[in-house]
């Protein structure tokens, strides 16, 4: 029934390769000795490198394949390249982290790769059902990864909570998809767009479907009021997984969400931008204010990641308001820059050990500058960047988002977002102050120390290079984001 061409398979070769790698990991894991399991890491990294090359070659050659279920274009490639990069960092970080945590599960890497495939499907699907498939593949893998610390109740709780709420949100998303199908007669984005353009925009069915899709995506993006799982799950999950969720899962969800709302629901811009304005303000306010009072760094970063989704939404609102694509480009830019600084911050948290466990309370950072000047300096750079202070990447991201708001005639929204950026400096710099300006209380064996390893050094070097280089010379990334957005129909 469905015309099938083997040439289509070649275009999803990256996905196929990664699935193959994941299967190899799952099969080999039980038979390999613990000391040989490093091989799985190199296999995964090698696969990612090959896929990076393949995807980069697809930027210039857009194609719609599997009779419109999947689309290969520059927009998808932008996200995929970002996702490969973040996944690579996750694998490297996990390589050190899992050893420290004594979690010798080879299948971990298999789940990371499967989750990546889910994300890749999400950002390249032009059909809502393909998209749903992708989100489920991503989420199911994440549920497992969040509960990987089997001896730790908090990790299990995180996993269970994430699963139950995730299932709830998936249900809502699916309900939205089915209503949209009922209203437009299709699940393909171009056909939905065509149907909407010939309809009355005030159709309650259409609007309700949009709302449900918003809620479904809002959960994945951790937008207030659908954010409540975030702090618990981010805190409970193993930190390498948290970093992966906070960066990769968020990026993929934004990628899919923007494609659906621009390509499919673009005709309803006026309606959804009003809705996102409310969500954006709530997210900015609650995310930033609640981050102020956290005493656990992982929770603080969780609220910070909520707040950052709020800044990204400013760009979405701007697009909906004005209809120009610079808003969307600023969102792409924002999330890719956010990836570097957030991942770097989580990597430092992961490797700060106190006795056998993670030192993830703010107090554990006391006097880090004296004990580990390099780690403290890197954390400082990440915090400064998260606070959006030039000349770091974080500033460039905020600048573009705010400029898109001003351009769209919403200077007051830029002003509000800016106020919260100022407030956020308080909680980011509090950590810096603790690191730099308090004496370490004691240097006994239980006091927190950084565990450095070659793979961690690579992760931190990549993250800090991204933060500094894109702060000073963001133009290539900006142009890539603009090119990616121009591929959206």
């Amino acid at each position: 029934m469905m015309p099938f061409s083997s040439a289509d398979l070649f275009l999803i070769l990256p996905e196929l390769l990664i699935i193959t790698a994941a299967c190899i990991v799952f099969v080999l894991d039980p038979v390999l000795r613990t000391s040989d399991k490093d091989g799985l890491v190199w296999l995964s990294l090698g696969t990612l490198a090959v896929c990076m090359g393949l995807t980069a070659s697809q930027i210039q050659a857009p194609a719609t394949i599997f009779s419109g279920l999947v689309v290969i274009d520059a927009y998808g490639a932008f996200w995929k390249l970002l996702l490969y990069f973040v996944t690579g960092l996750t694998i490297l970080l996990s390589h050190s982290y899992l050893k420290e945590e004594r979690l010798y599960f080879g299948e971990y890497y298999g789940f990371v790769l499967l989750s990546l495939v889910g994300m890749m499907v999400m950002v390249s699907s032009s059909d809502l059902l393909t998209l749903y498939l992708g989100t489920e593949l991503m989420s199911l893998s994440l549920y497992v990864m969040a509960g990987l610390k089997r001896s730790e109740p908090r990790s299990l709780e995180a996993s269970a909570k994430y699963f139950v709420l995730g299932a709830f949100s998936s249900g809502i998303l699916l309900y939205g998809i089915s209503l949209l199908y009922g209203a437009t007669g299709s699940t393909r984005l171009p056909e939905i767009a065509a149907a909407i353009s010939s309809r009355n925009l005030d159709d309650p069915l259409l609007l309700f479907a949009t709302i449900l899709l918003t809620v479904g995506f809002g959960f994945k993006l951790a937008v207030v009021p659908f954010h409540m799982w975030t702090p618990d799950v981010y805190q409970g999950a193993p930190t390498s997984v948290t970093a992966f969720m906070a960066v990769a899962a968020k990026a993929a969800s934004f990628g899919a969400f923007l494609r659906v709302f621009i390509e499919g629901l673009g005709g309803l811009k006026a309606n959804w931008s009003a809705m996102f304005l409310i969500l954006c303000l709530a997210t900015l306010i609650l995310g930033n204010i609640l981050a102020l009072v956290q005493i656990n760094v992982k929770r603080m970063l969780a609220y910070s990641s909520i707040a950052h989704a709020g800044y990204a939404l400013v760009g979405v609102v701007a697009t909906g308001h004005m209809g120009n694509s610079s808003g969307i480009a600023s969102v792409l830019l924002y999330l890719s820059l956010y990836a570097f600084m957030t991942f770097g911050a989580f990597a430092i948290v992961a490797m700060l050990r106190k006795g056998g466990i993670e030192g993830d309370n703010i107090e554990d950072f006391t006097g880090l500058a004296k004990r580990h000047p390099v780690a403290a300096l890197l954390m400082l750079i990440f915090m400064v960047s998260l606070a959006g202070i030039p000349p770091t990447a974080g500033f460039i991201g905020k600048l573009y988002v705010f400029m898109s708001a001003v351009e769209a005639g919403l200077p007051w929204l830029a002003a509000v977002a800016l106020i919260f950026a100022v407030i956020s400096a308080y909680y980011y710099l509090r950590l810096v102050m603790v690191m730099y300006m308090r004496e370490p209380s004691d240097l006994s064996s239980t006091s927190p120390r950084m565990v450095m390893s070659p793979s961690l050094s690579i992760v931190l070097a990549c993250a800090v290079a991204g933060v500094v280089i894109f702060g000073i010379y963001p133009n290539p990334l900006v142009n890539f984001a603009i090119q990616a957005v121009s591929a959206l129909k």
Partner: protein
Amino acid sequence: MIYALIPLLPLTAFLILGLAGRHINARAHLVAVPAVLLSLALSVGAFIEVASGSVISLPLYTWLTSGTLDIHIGLHIDRLTAVMLLLVTGVSSLVHVYTIGYMHGDPGYARFFGYIALFTFSMLMLVLADNLLQLFVFWEAVGLCSYLLIGHWYERASACAAATKAFLVNRVGDFGFMLGLLLVWYSFGSLNYLDIFPALHEATEVTMNLLGPFGGTWEVSVFTLIALLLFTGAVGKSAQVPLHVWLPDAMEGPTPISALIHAATMVTAGVFMVARLAPIYNLSPTAMSVVAITGAVTMVLGATIALTQTDIKRVVAYSTVSQLGYMIMACGLGAYASGMYHLLTHGAFKALLFLGCGSVIIALHHEQDMRHMGGLKDKLPITYWTFVVGSLALAGFPLTAGFFSKDDILVSAWSSGDLGRTLTLLGLLTALLTAFYSFRLVFVTFWGTSHVDPHHAEHLHEPSRTITTPLIILAVFSVLTGYLGIPSFLEPIFQTGGEPAVPHGSDGLMIMAAATAMGLIGMAAAYYVYVLNPDLPERLARQWGRLYRGSLNKWYVDEAYDCLFVRPTLAAASKLWKHVDVHVIDGTVNGIARAITWGGWLLRLVQSGQTQHYALAMAVGIVVLTAYLLL
């Protein structure tokens, strides 16, 4: 093209020290000092070239392009920039040399040089900027360097919160700056000076309705708005009231930093910015008045606080606040050239005073309290004499540089209208206070009987040559900069078609006489109070108890901010956290406890109550959104 090396040399020094600092620790100055000296030499070259009337423009690379936005990192050298270049590289060179002695033996010797080189680079890029965004980026970068330097080498534990406060207070100012920047871009579609300035006259009638989002009408000229927003940034960076609170606390950092960053360069960035954007400010009389009055208030307030402080660096710090007020006031009255002139002379004599303080502090093994000093003039003759020269310049003693520049400000202020005349009177009053507190410092520290800790008193000696040489050079410049004809050098840039801002006349002589008299009276009063009647200060303090305590406690501004802003925000945040975002920590802990004691724990964890709450919140979200969109 060679002038690109002016900022790049310090940057190179920073990179070398950052990457290989561990290997060259004790020889770090061999990298940093030549780099910045070469920068100085090139700046002199640029100054001479610009003096012949040319303007140097050097685009370096394209930083951002997208749509209508096109921003280069570039260098723009005109007369204003050239003066700043000399000040920055000059003071930085001397501070580099001074640091050799001051930080000798410190484990972070190379890192310290790395940071001041990075600071010098950032400051140079700030003054060389040819667009507002570059200015802003390096505006933040200098703040960051200052934060890092205080953070690494604080001398007392009380500095912990202080350095962070400095940074956060500046965020408030920068919030305004950033908004102003967005507004400039919104109004003119560009951030390059050379695109904005010619476009200004086309937008003179443009207004913005500030109450638009709330349905009201309050039309404000877009220039007023831009000027005031950008000025907020200057208020933060140049420590003007009400954001002046950070500067004195920043004095917890090492003294070379205070001299370089908190006296001569970074804090003057606000003044520089207002002068740079003079064409915008000139179009908004409202903004100009605000600038002038803010400057005047700061000038008086800073001076009144400096009267009673007992930490020698704090006296000089509040004096800096007060002198920055002079400069801002001058700019607000349209006398940009006078403001910049004072900025330059002040850079020389205030750096001298700070480095002099540093010399005293080293000699006394990190004692900073004036009450534990006294009688130092015979023990530290070079420090003493250079300090006196600096204080004379600060007090506006005739024929010193400070005399000429302060006089220039007051005369220009007097001739600029009614507001100017009022503010001139305040300026004269401040001149009196300035002379008094600066000589109080001299007399209490260097004269009278010694209150020095007997341990240190025996082997009290002048610090090494690397410390005294910069003092002598700065002392020479504290006099010499008065004779270089800076105002007439600068004036051409600020002439935008109107009549010259400073018509000198018989009034000028009168003001000059009054200012001189004020200075002399202040010095005489200090001599009377602190030398002739050493027990008088205490009696005065008792008699004027309330005023004395107010001044000593900096008029309780910090405490007021704490009560008004900091505590309510934190209280609200933790309330919000407890009530809106569920009892998370408690809930988790209970969840675990129950999980362990009860069977079927996985189900338990999910049913600990929160999960339903979370799902409920989502459902409520759906209802609210539906109501909003469909009803």
